[in-house]
């Protein structure tokens, strides 16, 4: 073997070994993906509420409500005060879980979902959730840079670490989380937002606070 060929062989060997080692390491380091649950008949949750979800209210509650929602959907915004009232009133009897279901026609739905997740990383998911819903009209029609700026404003108001917030908003982990919520939603038969599940069963959307209350009371009395 002549010197030139020899150099090429050994340099490429070192490169290949290095790349292989780094690749193997990266694959090993990636967080394990939980497999998606099988599809249900369309009226039950495909996956029960887990410990790593955004849940507020009573622990081990007799009644659990899961909402599949899109921050930009007007109906979800309209249900927001109802849900707030219900969760406040039944704080010791009912648990409420929020799952993302950003719809493709809402251009800022994913962005806001990422913002809520990023705030959640700093322990302020519900604060950001309220902020986003309460100001839904302010950002719904904005383009990406302006919407981003408004969300950063919310983060500032919530006294979040802005650099970390920005990083978490664009991380693969955040994106994967939101996507997984939606995938499980599709498998649970979600076809519009908001979709509510009462103890794992899809419910007819109540027409307002009073009707919601009646349904919960009935379930609590069971």
């Amino acid at each position: 073997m002549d010197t030139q060929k020899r150099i090429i062989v050994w340099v490429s060997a070192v490169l290949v070994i290095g790349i292989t080692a780094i690749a193997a390491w990266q694959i090993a380091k990636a967080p394990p993906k939980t497999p998606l649950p099988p599809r249900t008949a369309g009226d039950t949750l495909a996956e029960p509420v887990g410990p790593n979800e955004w849940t507020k209210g009573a622990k081990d509650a007799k009644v659990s409500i899961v909402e599949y929602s899109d921050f930009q959907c007007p109906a979800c915004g309209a249900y927001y005060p109802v849900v707030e009232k219900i969760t406040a009133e039944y704080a010791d009897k009912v648990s409420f879980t929020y799952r993302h279901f950003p719809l493709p026609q809402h251009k800022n739905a994913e962005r806001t979902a990422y913002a809520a997740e990023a705030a959640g990383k700093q322990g302020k998911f519900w604060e950001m959730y309220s902020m986003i819903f309460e100001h839904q009209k302010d950002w719904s029609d904005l383009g990406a840079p302006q919407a981003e700026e408004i969300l950063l404003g919310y983060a500032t108001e919530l006294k979040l670490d802005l650099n970390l917030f920005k990083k978490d908003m664009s991380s693969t982990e955040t994106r994967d989380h939101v996507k997984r919520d939606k995938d499980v939603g599709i498998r649970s038969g979600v076809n519009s937002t908001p979709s509510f599940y009462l103890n794992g069963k899809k419910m007819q959307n109540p027409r307002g606070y009073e009707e919601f209350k009646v349904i919960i009371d009935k379930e609590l009395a069971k």
Partner: protein
Amino acid sequence: MPPTISKFLIGAIVLLALIGFADSTFLFAKRIVGTPIPCVLGFSGCDEVAKSPHSVLFGIPLSALGTVFYLAIGIIALLYADTKKVLLAKLLLGATTIGFLMSVYFIYVQGFLIKAFCIYCVISAIISTALFTLGIILYRTLPTPRKDL
């Protein structure tokens, strides 16, 4: 033996060593990171095997030994291609024999002591066996020393 066959042999050894290296490095990294090892292709005992007390030899994780082993095989094979020194081919046969014997033992440990198989370990055993076979073939291509009477 024509040089093309010899080249093909060494190429195969280097490639197998590289796959074995990736496999072992992955297991070793998993051990350090500490996250569970997902099984594929119907295997179910990956984590059980990789975390069993049998996965350590003299305080060194087997995956680390595997990484060094495959790296050494690859380097020896390349050195042989480079220099054509008979000693290196003999070394290769010796090393792959040890690798093969250890793999046989690990398969025994998985099958009879842990009673679970880990696909990454089985892949490693298959590669070791293939390397051993290639090591023998390579050794047999060596010119036999002529006895002068």
